[in-house]
């Protein structure tokens, strides 16, 4: 063994109690850092998952247009002084062509043209407000994974039963409906249809469950009294949902319709998620930093206690770098052991929390082993311990032996 590490080892072992306290500090800092950040990742993933049960990564639609005032001449007044929304603009021209082009883009996973509208579910004299979405059932399932939260019936029947409808569990409960029953529905255009329930879904998001239903594209077009070329939005899912924002502008320019990514459409949710990430990062980094201070303190004390040793080592021909190595080795020993134990502790904690049931649409506590978080934590933890050792070590390296011997 190298003599520097040998000396470091002796110092570490002779101050066993101090070393243990420092290790404990790093352990707790590391474990909490990894646990909190894994939890944050888990929260984000769960909320994204429940999000994408009903929201596409990108929605292309025709935004309402305000009638433009006629060109203003040099000093003339505007001709239209009270502009209004142009009627009948919520329609995409030639949606099949757009869908075909989109499907050819490398980043696009699935394209679903849909007809969305507000409807009333009629139950005798009372009506329930709701929203129905019509699309190709196979593609719709590929995008929202609807089959995974079906509780009754079969989603596939939507394509075989021509007047089929799949409704949320909330609607079914309120209206006392089951698969196979009939449901009368009135669209915003005043069209009445009686549809056959082929399935019931439950997302655990009560707002969705109480209002939402799915029909085939043809049924939806009929409810809107439109031709079979009518589509109100084109939904797009990407392979990487994080990059939806980058593609939005590109598609807006490409097709001339508004392309809105999920982050922009849900700014409030994104802001809350960012804020949570900032708070958790700040708190967990502070904890890591505090454990770094523990190491710094202990090494600072060791350096003061061993100042005679340092002087004698320098007199015997140890260079400044040797002295730095001795104390940095000591800090890194504490750091490596602390980080390793911290990882172990965090994994145990995560495994316990994973089995805690919290209910609601979350179910079990949304946490799991996140390799990226653990990697980041390890790097930051080792860096902090290195610095916590390096600063006192540099002080030790600068000790002037003559000034010590003269005392």
């Amino acid at each position, binding site marked *: 063994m190298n003599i520097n590490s040998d000396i470091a080892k002796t110092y570490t072992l*002779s101050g066993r109690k101090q070393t243990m306290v420092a290790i404990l500090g790093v352990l707790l800092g590391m474990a909490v850092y990894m646990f909190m950040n894994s939890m944050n990742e888990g929260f984000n993933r769960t909320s994204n998952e429940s999000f994408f049960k009903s929201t596409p990564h990108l929605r292309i639609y025709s935004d309402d247009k305000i009638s433009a005032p006629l060109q203003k001449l040099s000093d003339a007044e505007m001709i239209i002084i009270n502009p209004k929304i142009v009627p009948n603009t919520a329609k995409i021209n030639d949606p099949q062509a757009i869908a075909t082009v989109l499907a050819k883009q490398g980043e696009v996973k699935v394209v679903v043209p849909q007809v969305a509208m507000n409807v009333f579910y009629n139950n005798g004299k009372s009506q329930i407000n709701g929203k129905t979405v019509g699309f190709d059932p196979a593609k719709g399932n590929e995008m929202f994974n609807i089959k995974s939260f079906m509780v009754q019936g079969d989603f596939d029947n939507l394509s075989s039963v021509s007047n089929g409808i799949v409704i949320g569990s909330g609607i079914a409960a309120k209206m006392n409906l089951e698969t196979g029953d009939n449901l009368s529905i009135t669209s915003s255009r005043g069209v009445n249809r009686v549809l056959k329930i082929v399935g019931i879904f439950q997302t655990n998001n009560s707002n969705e469950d109480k209002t939402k239903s799915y029909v085939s594209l043809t049924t939806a077009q009929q409810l809107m009294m439109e031709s079979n070329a009518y589509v109100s939005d084109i939904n797009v899912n990407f392979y990487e949902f994080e990059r939806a924002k980058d593609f939005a502008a590109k598609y807006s320019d490409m097709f001339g319709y508004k392309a809105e990514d999920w982050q922009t459409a849900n700014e409030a949710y994104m802001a809350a998620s960012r804020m949570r990430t900032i708070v958790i990062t700040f708190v967990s980094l502070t904890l890591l930093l505090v454990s770094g201070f523990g190491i710094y303190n202990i090494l600072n004390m060791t350096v003061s206690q061993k100042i005679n040793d340092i002087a*004698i*080592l320098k007199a015997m*021909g140890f*260079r400044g*770098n040797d002295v730095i190595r001795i104390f940095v080795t000591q800090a890194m020993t504490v750091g490596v052991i602390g980080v390793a134990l911290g990882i172990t502790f965090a994994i145990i904690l995560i495994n316990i929390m994973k089995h805690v049931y919290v209910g609601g649409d979350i179910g079990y506590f949304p946490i799991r082993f996140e390799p990226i978080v653990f990697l980041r934590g390890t790097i930051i933890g080792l860096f902090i311990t290195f610095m916590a050792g390096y600063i006192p070590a540099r002080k030790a390296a600068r000790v002037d032996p003559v000034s010590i011997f003269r005392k």
Partner: protein
Amino acid sequence: MNVLSVNNIRKSFFDPVEFEVLKGISFDVKKGEFLSMVGKSGSGKSTLLYILSTMDTDYKGELKIDGEVLTGKSLDELARIRNEKIGFIFQFHYLLAEFTCLKNVMIPALRLGKYSEEEIEFKAMEKLTALGLADQAMKPASKLSGGQQQRVAIARALINDPLIIMGDEPTGNLDTKNTDIVFNILKDLAHNSGQTIIAVTHDMDFARASDRIIEMVDGRISD
């Protein structure tokens, strides 16, 4: 042959007021010489020793050891030269308390890295045996008596077979019996192993028994 020579060494302290502690010191030391430096407190003898030891680099003039000019060399180079060519014995023995006597003796050689650990251990044991400490080798340094500790320190100073052994009051803290033991060891090293000894001392008996005395008076060598 000159092992060490200094030429017109000057040094001043600036705190609290400017004070020239060494006023142009020049002398040569031959191989195998046992040299004592004496003088009153504040005469500059310790200051001079620390300059000779290469640990103090803040001086004017020139220092040569083994024919090599050391003035102006980097701290790392000086550390290497100290490690290889100079052994130290201090008044308060300054052993590393948490290590065994054997390890204390081995440390400078381990730093030098010229021999394997087994060879170094064998050599260290040899030195301790020669100084009558074979049975103390595995004890922690802090468990030994003052005289024993000083002998361990001598063994440590000898481990790299240095050209020069420097002592700052090597017997200052010892009783008469141990002083005699340490003195005889040093004398034997100078006369039989050809190693040069430079020792700062207050003890006039010790000085008179050595080969040569340099007396410092107010920053100068008196004649």
